[in-house]
């Protein structure tokens, strides 16, 4: 990130003529603190995009304190600004709770919702519906699905049409219920 000039960051520092030392020492302190502020913002918030706001906020607090005290040298102002920058970083981190945003949403890996295979598994799934059904029922339903008539299925399975339909009745009812449910949802 390009290093802003101290003048950029101290834009809102307004002091009376007898307190011009505040602006002067703060400009030096900002130059000293900037790399550390950038690093702290990065390591604590996951990105350095708010570092300008953080330093500006720290400057504002520093000005308030310096106006009420005795004149300080650049080193002492640098220490004060360092402390205030770290406080501001912590405050912002607390405000964001436990959420840490690293990078943009474009960099995120695909979510399960975007995965078409998962989406398919959410729709009417005959494998799941027919889980636990006896083999003859499953075969009969496969044959019916293949457009065999019930009488043909009965002949293939060596039984009567009434028997095979009775065997498949419960499974068919479950499919109907599920399918009607799907229709209502869509």
């Amino acid at each position, binding site marked *: 990130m390009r290093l802003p000039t101290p003048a950029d960051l101290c834009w809102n520092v307004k002091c009376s003529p007898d307190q011009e030392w505040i602006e002067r020492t703060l400009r030096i302190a900002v130059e000293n603190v900037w790399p550390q502020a950038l690093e702290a913002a990065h390591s604590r918030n996951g990105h350095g995009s708010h570092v300008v706001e953080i330093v500006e906020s720290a400057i504002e607090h520093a000005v308030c304190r310096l106006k009420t005290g005795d004149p300080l040298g650049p080193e002492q102002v640098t220490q004060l600004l360092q402390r205030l920058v770290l406080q501001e970083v912590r405050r912002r981190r607390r405000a964001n709770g436990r959420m840490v945003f690293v990078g943009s949403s474009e960099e995120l890996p695909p979510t399960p919702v975007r995965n078409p295979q998962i989406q398919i598994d959410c729709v009417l799934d005959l494998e799941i519906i027919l889980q636990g059904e006896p083999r003859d029922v499953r075969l009969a339903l496969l044959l019916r699905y293949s457009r065999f008539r019930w009488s043909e299925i009965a002949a293939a399975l060596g039984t009567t049409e009434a028997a095979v339909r009775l065997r498949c009745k419960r499974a*068919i009812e479950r499919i109907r219920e599920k399918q009607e449910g799907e229709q209502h949802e869509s």
Partner: protein
Amino acid sequence: MNVALSRSFRKDAVTLTEHPFIPFDNEDDSLLFEKLQEHVLAHYPNPERKGCPDPAVLRSLIDNPGDVTLAALNDLHIFKCAECTRLLLKLRQKKKQREAAE
């Protein structure tokens, strides 16, 4: 004559997508299974033919349904495969045409 009734007379001529409001409850459950086929064709594409049984097994299912086992069909794979469903419907149609010609 209402649409549902006319549907029963012209079962093969009317598609379900034209009349989505037709009730499922018909005598031989054909509407239910047609709807299921549409559903599988729309939601379970399998261009790589993963887990598909050999086409010969599907042909055998159509020609001699009593001879095919669930294991040979990879259990209920067909219910989750648009490609197998499409092939089955094609084979079934061909068989019907053959039978009609005879």
